[in-house]
């Protein structure tokens, strides 16, 4: 049985990964999951300098979902390399940092340094964070800005490059196609959907940044639709995510066309879930007599 997945020159041992933003730097999750047994760990969105993130309220539960406004709090590149990466390497995790800087220049610098850093297996370029005022989603919703950033990132990135797309556009597949044309090795989708919470007692937005990112089972049908649409347009692998909580959800994304999947919000509820899903996927393949995931990938398109 072959559960492996290729992303450019990188091979993941299985398609179950943990998504940036709900995987910390691997160490927190490693209390609950053997992070060497899952496909990859996408670490928290990184900037050159440490970033404090947003003040005030940062998270609130919604019906079957979560709104967050963390604002890319992170330790910065130096501390990531010195203090966080060694643990990931020692644990045997496939490590994919998420690059999420304010400016094109800073993103390029991060890609350039990280792709030459031993222990980094691929880079996920985040053009889709809805929770920062500068950069973030602005990179992923304007085709000109997107093109310029991805072109430059590709130029300086020698390791596999994954572009994390924003669902907050009319036609996400056209962004995926552009990424493929430029030479990205994969796309990941979806980042959170733009949402909002208003506190009716204070009559004000709940979050200081007013808007926030929605994730969790509530967004899953939207994410499945988006992965399905991207698959119709591109040949590069898709890392699908959005509300995946159980093995049925994993299979739905693979059948929509995802090569790998990421577990995000579900890790907040069941920190051990990604490890369990890797095992359950093998059980499913055995039961169904499937030897390679290629047999079911994109199955929903063959009608």
């Amino acid at each position: 049985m072959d559960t492996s997945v290729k992303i450019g020159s990188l091979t993941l041992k299985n398609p179950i990964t943990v998504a940036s933003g709900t995987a910390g730097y691997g160490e927190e999750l490693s209390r609950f999951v053997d992070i060497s047994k899952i496909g990859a760990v996408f670490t928290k969105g990184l900037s050159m300098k440490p970033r404090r993130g947003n003040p005030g309220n940062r998270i609130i539960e919604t019906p079957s979902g979560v709104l967050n406004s963390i604002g890319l709090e992170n330790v910065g590149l130096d501390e990531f390399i010195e203090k966080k990466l060694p643990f990931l390497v020692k644990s045997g995790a496939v490590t994919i940092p998420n690059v999420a800087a304010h400016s094109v220049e800073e993103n390029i610098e991060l890609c350039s340094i990280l792709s030459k850093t031993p222990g980094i297996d691929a880079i996920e370029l985040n053009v889709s964070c809805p929770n920062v005022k500068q950069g973030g989603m602005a990179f992923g919703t304007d085709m000109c800005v997107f093109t310029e950033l991805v072109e430059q990132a590709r130029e300086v990135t020698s390791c596999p490059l994954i572009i994390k797309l924003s669902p907050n556009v009319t036609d996400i597949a056209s962004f995926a196609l552009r990424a493929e044309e430029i030479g990205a090795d994969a796309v990941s989708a979806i980042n959170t959907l733009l949402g909002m919470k208003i506190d009716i007692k204070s009559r004000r937005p709940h979050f200081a940044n007013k808007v926030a990112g929605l994730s969790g089972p509530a967004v899953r049908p939207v994410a499945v639709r988006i992965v399905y649409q991207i698959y119709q347009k591109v040949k590069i692998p898709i890392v699908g995510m959005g509300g995946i909580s159980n093995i049925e959800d994993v299979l739905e994304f693979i059948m929509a066309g995802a090569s790998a999947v990421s577990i995000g919000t579900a890790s907040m509820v069941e920190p051990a879930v990604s490890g369990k899903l890797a095992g359950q996927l093998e059980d499913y393949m055995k039961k169904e007599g499937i030897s390679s995931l290629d047999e079911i990938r994109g199955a929903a398109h063959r009608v």
Partner: protein
Amino acid sequence: MAQLLSMPQLVAKDHYMMTIKMDCPSIRPGQFVNIRTNEGTDPLLRRPFSIYDADGSIIRVVIRVIGRGTEILCRMEPGEINMLAPLGNGFTVENAGEVLLVGGGVGNAPLLYLAKELKKAGNRVTYIYCSRGKNYIFGEDEFRSAVDEFLITTDDGSAGLRGFATEVAAHVISDIKFSRIYTCGPDPMMEKTVKLANPGAKVEVSVENYFGCGVGICVGCTVDTTDGYVRACVDGPVLDGRKIIWKNMPD
């Protein structure tokens, strides 16, 4: 695997006690449990509760009913429950001589087990139990028998002294005999307790803010301190009270 041993018991207005059997490693006072309310997706997130008491493999937690999640929990049938525990760092327990504990509302919950452990460690324990009113007081007898001095204050005067502890018992809180003060409750109460504490006293506070994951991965529960942001769930919930920047506490 954790087992809820009986239906949650009503112990005060809006407050229920859960008695749970679990495979426990040693539990430190101030640590918490994180319980799923259902195996579906709504409510989605776990609900965190501080550990009220621990005795071998049996723990107790106090739930204040504030919404749908806690309403579901307080009606749970005995049997298996989905709980992560113990989580968080816990209070410092050592022989410091004279210590003071100040609890407010459901924030009294983590202080019973702490009081017991502090007594065991040889401390003389004074306790100020703050509550909105008589009907909201839980565990009074247990607290009384666990400590050396016990004082109740209620907002409405229906039990003990009338008013906020940080006003009517300010002289107790600021007494220079205390080398350590531990507090858990509403932010304004904890902030004032820190301000009233004699400068020589170490003050540990247990913060209660909105948790996403409870295990340090989502960075949703940050507290601003003079050392920068820390995560209440894994760097706390017990923090050095003098380092907290209270005006930046989330709602």
